[in-house]
């Protein structure tokens, strides 16, 4: 395991210290909890947005704490959902009179831990609502399983929910818009290499030198299948066919695109992928309103990427364009 770390057991704590040292103008850390909150929280008159999940997906979610996005991000151990007490503490610290909205990625652990935290906060009389992001089209037949996973599309959810909350809208309004984003976003990814959870010390799966996994989850959960490495264009065509097969896009529809690197894939390759994504959308007459290329929700040093497509209406466009000022995502 080649990592720039000190102690595998303390990576999350030390990372937190490094984040706070880097961005004191944006965030502060709650004492005794791996929770980052907005410097000036609670922001009165604004619904507070709380998200989080296992660590190892940086900049998710701590990098999105700031004006126009999250009020708090709760970090669990690497790839492990955070515990209810930490989430509860986050809610208590950032919730305003307008209440708080929890943005949860659809994993059993995340859902249960956030649910418990919600119950705890409600017992304190805090108004709390929650939404569950499930954008990963690689997981099908949701009636038989726990449903789709939440992956990089979550960043669009943070952005737009954050912009809506910033307008001073009420909790149910913010929740309505957030659910619209969730209904409108689809993602799918693929991986070329595994990653190593520091505490485990060895790769979470293996792939042959010429193999890739299509539909890979962000914790190394298996995808739809493995096959020999293909060209960027072929890979993009496949991922896009799955995504577009699941969301109704018509000519002149507007979309936002996110090409998300999983950790070790160079920007060069992400742009080569974006070239094809753009071509496919334009061929269909779909208009690309905004594109985000970079690392937004990673899996440590996994090589690979995901594509997210968000269908936009006028309301979502305006909120996507609204100012955001966070360490990892800025819209001017």
């Amino acid at each position: 395991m080649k990592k720039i770390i000190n102690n595998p057991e303390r990576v999350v704590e030390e990372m937190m210290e490094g984040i706070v040292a880097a961005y004191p103008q944006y965030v502060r850390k709650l004492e005794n909890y791996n929770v980052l909150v907005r410097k000036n929280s609670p922001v009165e008159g604004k619904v507070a947005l709380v998200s989080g999940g296992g660590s190892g997906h940086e900049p998710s979610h701590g990098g999105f704490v700031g004006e126009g996005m999250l009020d708090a991000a709760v970090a669990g151990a690497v790839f492990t959902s955070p515990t209810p007490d930490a989430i509860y503490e986050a809610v208590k610290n950032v919730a305003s009179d307008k209440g708080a909205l929890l943005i949860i990625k659809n994993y059993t652990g995340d859902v249960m831990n956030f649910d418990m935290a919600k119950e705890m906060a409600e017992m304190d009389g805090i108004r709390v609502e929650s939404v569950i992001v499930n954008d990963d089209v690689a997981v099908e037949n949701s009636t038989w399983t726990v449903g789709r996973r939440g992956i990089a599309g979550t960043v669009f959810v943070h952005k737009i929910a954050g912009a809506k909350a910033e307008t001073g809208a009420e909790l149910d309004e913010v929740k309505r818009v957030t659910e619209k984003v969730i209904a409108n976003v689809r993602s799918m990814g693929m991986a070329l290499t595994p990653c190593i959870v520091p505490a485990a010390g060895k790769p979470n799966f293996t792939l042959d030198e010429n193999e890739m996994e299509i539909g890979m989850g962000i914790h190394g959960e298996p995808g739809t299948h493995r096959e020999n490495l293909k060209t960027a264009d072929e890979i993009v065509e496949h991922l896009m066919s799955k995504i577009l097969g699941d969301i109704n896009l018509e000519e002149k529809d507007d979309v936002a695109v996110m090409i998300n690197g999983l950790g070790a894939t160079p920007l060069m390759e992400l742009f080569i992928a974006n070239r094809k994504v753009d071509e496919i959308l334009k061929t269909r007459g779909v208009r690309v309103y905004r594109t985000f290329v970079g690392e937004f929700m990673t899996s440590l040093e996994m090589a690979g990427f995901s594509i997210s497509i968000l269908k936009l209406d006028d309301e979502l466009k305006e909120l996507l364009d609204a100012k955001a000022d966070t360490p990892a995502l800025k819209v001017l």
Partner: protein
Amino acid sequence: MSLNVEQTLRIIYKIGDKIEENKQYLTELDAAIGDGDHGINLSKGFRAAVEKLRNTQVKDIGETMKIVGMALVSNVGGASGPLYGTAFMKSGQAMIGKTEIDINDFYKMLYEALSGIKLRGKATVGEKTMVDAIEPALNELKNAIDEGFGAISALERAKNAALSGMHFTKEIAATKGRASYLGERSIGHQDAGATSSYIILDCIYEEVKNILEGK
């Protein structure tokens, strides 16, 4: 059977040891079809629970169980944290004020634990989860008590039912938890959570037996 607070503590410490011993094994089971952290997370949780108990002057068995539950909830994370945490907290709630418990109390505790797990996780038998170990154990415990078996034999029948349930998880596909993403590909692998549940129930049986036999 009758267990006092001290004896209950002894059993919980022993469960902590067993989880520690099986940390690697549970993690490997989880790695095959999940994300390979079940042993790591549970061990973290039980270590916290034991530490907390050692530093607390507990009044009764209800409080003891609630402390364990809360320690698990705040230290395990993932899916099993809320599940085991809820299980211990719920079983504790049913024993508030009690300083002695018998086999019927234990049945009540296990009943509350399972109800909590099912409420929280919404799983039923056959979904390849810890429910597949606990529910058969609960049923078998009831049968044994109804049939007039003594505490030790009743617990033995219960933990054997858990063992069968645990083995049964190999035969089926997961439809709950992280392994469900694998669908049919999860068949052939034993569920990590069912395994830890069996380990706990087996440990309880062994320790109660030791205690009652004066060991």
